């Protein structure tokens, strides 16, 4: 059990975690000001006999200050966030050389279609593996995400990537894995009674490993 975000397993995981930390610092400052302020007032201004409260209806100056500071902070935060948002999820964000994989979600499994040795989807050498996502490290991967029945959500915590799979839509989502290893992919949208067990394994291979796996899997030796 650790008390922070999980391993950073993709190129944008660091950026997302950085933004998380920045927001934690900003909100942390606000949190400390408000809670300590409340505590201080509660102790200092507790009722004592014979004292009367200070009669005032407010202060325009104070109110302008505590309106302006949050306003400026929020607009700045919005602009910074939007920079990363466009870069990670924008319509044109998918790198042109991304390796294509199709994932078809259905109650309660992930059907992963690989492009085969030719590296292109929609050709004869495509093959499908259930509940196993194999990707090469250090290369952008684009997932063409569809759903058979209800809304599911493709969620790989170490990649910091989440995207709903919506029936009737074909949605592209990309990431670039940075650390070889075995991870988990889960469904993040309530999709029925088997929602909790709609999980798959994610294998991040080195390029050589990936090529070897691909060769073997294409011949039908994949564990499916």
């Amino acid at each position, binding site marked *: *059990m650790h008390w922070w*975000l*999980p391993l950073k397993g993709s190129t944008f995981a660091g950026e*997302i975690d950085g*933004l*998380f930390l920045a*927001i934690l610092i900003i*909100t942390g400052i*606000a*949190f400390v000001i*408000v*809670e300590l302020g*409340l505590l201080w*007032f*509660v102790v200092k*201004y507790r*009722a*004592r006999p014979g004292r009367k*409260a*200070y*009669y*005032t*209806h*407010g202060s325009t100056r104070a*109110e302008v200050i*505590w*309106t302006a500071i*949050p*306003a400026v902070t*929020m607009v700045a*935060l*919005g602009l910074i*966030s*939007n920079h*990363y*948002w466009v870069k*990670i*999820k924008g*319509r044109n964000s998918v790198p042109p050389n991304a390796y294509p994989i199709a994932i078809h979600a259905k109650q309660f499994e992930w059907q992963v279609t690989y492009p085969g040795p030719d590296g292109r989807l929609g050709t004869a050498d495509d093959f499908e593996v259930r509940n196993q996502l194999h990707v090469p490290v250090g290369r952008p991967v684009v997932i063409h995400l569809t759903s058979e029945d*209800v*809304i599911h*959500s493709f*969620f790989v*915590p170490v990649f910091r990537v*989440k995207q*709903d799979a*919506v*029936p*009737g*839509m074909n*949605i592209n989502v990309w990431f670039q894995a940075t650390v070889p290893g075995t991870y*988990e992919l*889960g469904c993040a949208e*309530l*999709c*029925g*009674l088997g929602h*909790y*067990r709609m*999980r798959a394994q994610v294998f991040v291979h080195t390029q050589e490993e990936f090529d070897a796996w691909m060769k073997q899997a294409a011949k039908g030796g994949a564990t499916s």
Partner: protein
Amino acid sequence: MTTVAATSHVAHAHHDDRSFVRKYIFSTDHKIIGIQFLFVSLFFLLVGGLLAMQMRWQLAFPGKPMPGGGILPDTMAPGGVLLPEYYIQLVTMHGTFMVFFAIMPLLVGVYANFLIPLKIGAHDMAFPRINMASFWSALLAGLIMLAGFFVPDGAPRAGWTSYAPLSARPDLSGASYGQMLWCISLVFLGLSSILGSLNYITTIINNRAPGMTWFRMPLSVWALFITAILGLLALPVLSGAVIMLLFDQTIGTHFFDPVAGGQALLWQHLFWFFGHPEVYILILPAMGMVSDIIANGSRKPIFGYHSMVFAIVAIAFLGWIVWGHHMFMSGMNPTLGSSFMVSTLIIAVPSAIKTFNWMGTMWRGNLRFHVPMLNAVAFVAMFVIGGLSGIFMAATPVDMFIHDTAFIVAHLHYVLFGGSLFALFGAITYWYPKMFGKLMSERWGKVHFWLTFLFYNCTFFPMHILGMAGEMRRIYDPSQYTFLQPYQPMRVFITVSAYLLFATQLIFFVNFWWSLFKGKKAPQNPWEDNGLEWSLPAPAPHGNWETVPTVYRGPYEFSSPQVPEDYLPQYRKLPTDREPARAPVAGH
């Protein structure tokens, strides 16, 4: 018309010869209707809590028989072990009951009804019979929803948000009648809210006492007024959407199912177009009542009254243009995500104004820590956490990670429990003497407050950590995932805290009922407050005043140098006060 109705109410105030049934069951008295809403929604709050307790058992001890679970039928928990299909029914019904049948009617049904006429100096609501219809419609809706547990296939299973196509297709959800009852129930609930809102808006516009100008209204009334406008505009959208969903389930339409040309995301747009204003329906009245209580407890005028009003209006307005922030990961065009992110972040500004103005009110006050004040200060302290954690998910890139995780569960409970429910514990204690003529026990109120505050934080704060680990919401058994297994001790800690939190509510329950029969008799103005309601005996008669009081000043004139006492009621005439021009459309 209004004059005739008002006159007949005045006559009632003299000699109340109505039968028991007309007086307490089919009553048109706004105060009785408020109390009816109170009893019914406290019951549903208990139901929602019991459902949560069962979920917590499964999360802490997956696969182990739940104590007392043996009484559940085999379709829910054979041998006391919860089934996954029962777990998602619990998820769905906990959210549905808490949002629609506990928090919303507690805030709006109870306090809009009870407070608006008393605080603006009206004999009753503008349409007392419509008001009665609003209550009975809400009760019917709640009973229909509850019936879901007793039909074949059990309760609905698609979450309180009922995302289609899961909710639209019994073959995919496994719930048939329950899912339909969910829709039918919400049509009646929508009707109830629309009727209520219409009444509150009309009453506030037309029936204010002489001298009760807009900017002399207490912030609770302002908040309830703006909430009513939100309700009137939002609920019809929900009603339309659930009727379409019902058609999808029953007569073969495909509004939300793509297999025959429908759009899955259409449901989400319609639901959240209602749902986000709904979120503010669940917090604005709490903010209003907390403002009243904090000014009273601080013995000071509210800091920046006008900006408090404008902040309420701003939050409500912005509430209409942020619904897409629930859909950042839904496949909606990411460019729309950008604009929804900005509008969402801007809501932090009016929220900050309100928080700092509450602190400004306490600054250099003479703070009295009666039970309502303790709860109101806790509201501010906890609402801040919920508000600040909202910024994480408003930032779209961070939302990519924390969306639909336990982090969101923590956030929404900090707003709805830490916010709304603390405000409600305060409000119930504060206006209890006006409702029943008795005071609730101060000592047990304090015990309840401190234990609730402690166990509440122990229950919900760790959920932020679970969310940061990536734990998804609505998961029947998180230990299925290797990366979530190490967090089991934290889940057990949360569950134990949740049980203690639930047990603590027993203190409130006993205090509530004991005080009703054995409580100390309340003086007319127990909190030394300025509101018009305290000019009446407690409990107040049907029709409230024989002649409505005249209002000479704003509601927060505490510690005014004009009088030796530290409060100056709105209805007290000082030699320097001039008689107001009569309120233009009052008609009393």
